[in-house]
């Protein structure tokens, strides 16, 4: 059995909005093995994105432990978390979140600016990432010059640029039509199968979830195993 790259133990996440207390995650446990493709489903407000944020070190649990790629994220400082993210996590967002002032290749280069790589090596990494997503010919295009699907591919290339341990995708097809979404899911599946990238994907879409090898449902702050592909 492969080693668990994600270990979540008894995690609680509570938000306080004024006098109101919202228990988003309630004693959640989760193991994700290296090379898995996991889909997290659930209704709005069930805590999917909160969990994804905890796994990516963007937020901290109120209590419990989150260990990803050997790092205890619940105890790390903001600075350590930033450095850890740069090395281990690639994020894919629903609305792509590309920087509009940068061309596709410059967007992909962003995480590499934090490494010690020379400009020439960074360019090589960028070219490889863009080739993987099939957008070599769009390298010098600005996001406004790309279709939604192409923007998301650039987003995936940016997430891959650092060769991260984990790909975290928050509704990666949520803003795309069915056909384009299919292409993006094919790409994520290929990355998982060919390069054994661990992929955790939050989605509302059952068809998207079908592409994952394991699907978990989040409901009222707890996880329920749904099906195995």
């Amino acid at each position, binding site marked *: 059995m492969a080693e668990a790259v994600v270990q979540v133990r008894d995690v609680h996440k509570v938000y306080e909005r004024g006098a109101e207390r919202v228990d988003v995650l309630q004693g959640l446990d989760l193991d994700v093995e290296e090379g898995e493709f996991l889909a997290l489903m659930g209704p709005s407000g069930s805590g999917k994105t909160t969990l994804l*944020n905890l796994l*990516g070190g*963007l*937020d901290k649990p109120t209590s419990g432990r989150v260990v990803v790629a050997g790092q205890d994220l619940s105890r790390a400082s*903001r*600075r350590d978390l*930033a*450095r850890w*993210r*740069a*090395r281990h996590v690639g*994020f894919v*967002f629903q*609305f792509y*979140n590309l*920087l*509009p*002032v*940068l061309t596709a290749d*410059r967007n992909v280069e*962003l*995480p590499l*600016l*934090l490494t010690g790589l020379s*400009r020439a090596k960074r360019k090589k990494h960028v070219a490889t990432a863009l080739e993987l997503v099939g957008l070599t010919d769009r390298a010098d295009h600005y996001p406004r010059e790309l279709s939604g699907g192409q923007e998301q591919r650039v987003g995936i290339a*940016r997430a891959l640029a*650092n060769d991260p341990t984990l790909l975290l995708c928050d509704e990666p097809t949520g803003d795309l039509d069915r056909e384009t979404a299919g292409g993006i899911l094919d790409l994520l599946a290929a990355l998982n199968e060919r390069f054994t990238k661990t992929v955790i994907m939050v989605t509302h879409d059952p068809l998207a979830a079908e592409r994952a090898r394991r699907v978990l449902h989040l409901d009222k702050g707890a996880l329920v195993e749904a099906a195995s592909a």
Partner: protein
Amino acid sequence: MRFFHLLWRNLFRRKVRTLFTFLSIVVAFFLFGILMAIRHGFDYGVQIAGESRLLTIHKISIIQLLPIRYQSQIGSTPGVANVTHATWFGGVYQDPKNFFAQLAVEPEKYLEIYPDYVLSPEAEARWLATRTGAVAGRKLAQRFAWQVGDRIPIQPTFWRPTEGRDTYEFELVGIYEGSTPDVDETSFFFRQDYLMERVGDIGQVGWYVVEMEDPSRADEVAQAIDAQFANSPAETKTTTERAFLRDFAEQVGNTGAILMTIVGIVFFVILLIAGNTMAQSVRERTSELGVLKTVGFTDRAVLGLVLAEAVLLAVAGGVVGLVLAVVVIPGLEPLLVAFLPVFYAPPAALAAGLGLAVLLGLASGGLPAWFARRLQITEALRRR
């Protein structure tokens, strides 16, 4: 340098807004360069006045004359190395608007005590040989297109000749230059003996310039000079040349303080403009800052990026403004030469301007950068 492209592109996300802010900064630093040149012009005398020189004037006012016989008495005062005198002529050349300083002096001694005025040995020899000879500063000669050998008629206002024509006709025997850019090159010097010849030897001069053996004994020497003429009909007041010029400049008003107040107001306004630009720019890209943090930029790196962007804008505007001032100042010089004998932005003021640009950048970017640093990623990503 690896972040330069990102900084540059971010600056131009709103081209028109950045351009207007940039132009505001350019104008502010252009104004700064011009005002610093004016301030330097007002201060020039104070800056070059030697601490080793004393000025002895009439105790009541500089316009009161002193007896010529004081020269030998001052010269024999302990601590005095050399002494000469000068007399304000105040004549009119062609038109009262053509104002410039005209002083009657003893050529040899005056040039000895003021080595800042550089005159060729040939010109000095001509001056000594020509009783009506005069020398003019380089800028003054340029202003009126004078050449050596020209006859320069000057109408007196109070030194009326006792006989002959009313006009003084001088022969330009030389053109002096300043030993540094700070030396006045707009004065006109002629011989005291020619003045005395025209007005009858009245035995009086304007003031004395005293060179000391040891500048550290200035107070002692000054007191010794004044003590000799105490209770006489023409009591004296002796101070260092620098102190005298500073007091004189302050009679006009504290120009330095006035100019610095203007600079302060201009920069406060520019700070608000540049600060507003940066604040808007950061607010508009809150989610992008969240993305940067998501991909691994630390809080400090994001703070540095925003600050660097503000500094880049301020320094670019500052450099262009200062360069523009340096280019324009020589063009303004002929218009101002009658009021400001020295008019240029000194390197120290330009360096201060550059420092001010960095400070402006840090101050205008400080608050937005702090906001960017404190931004929570999850909060930032929610804003689109």
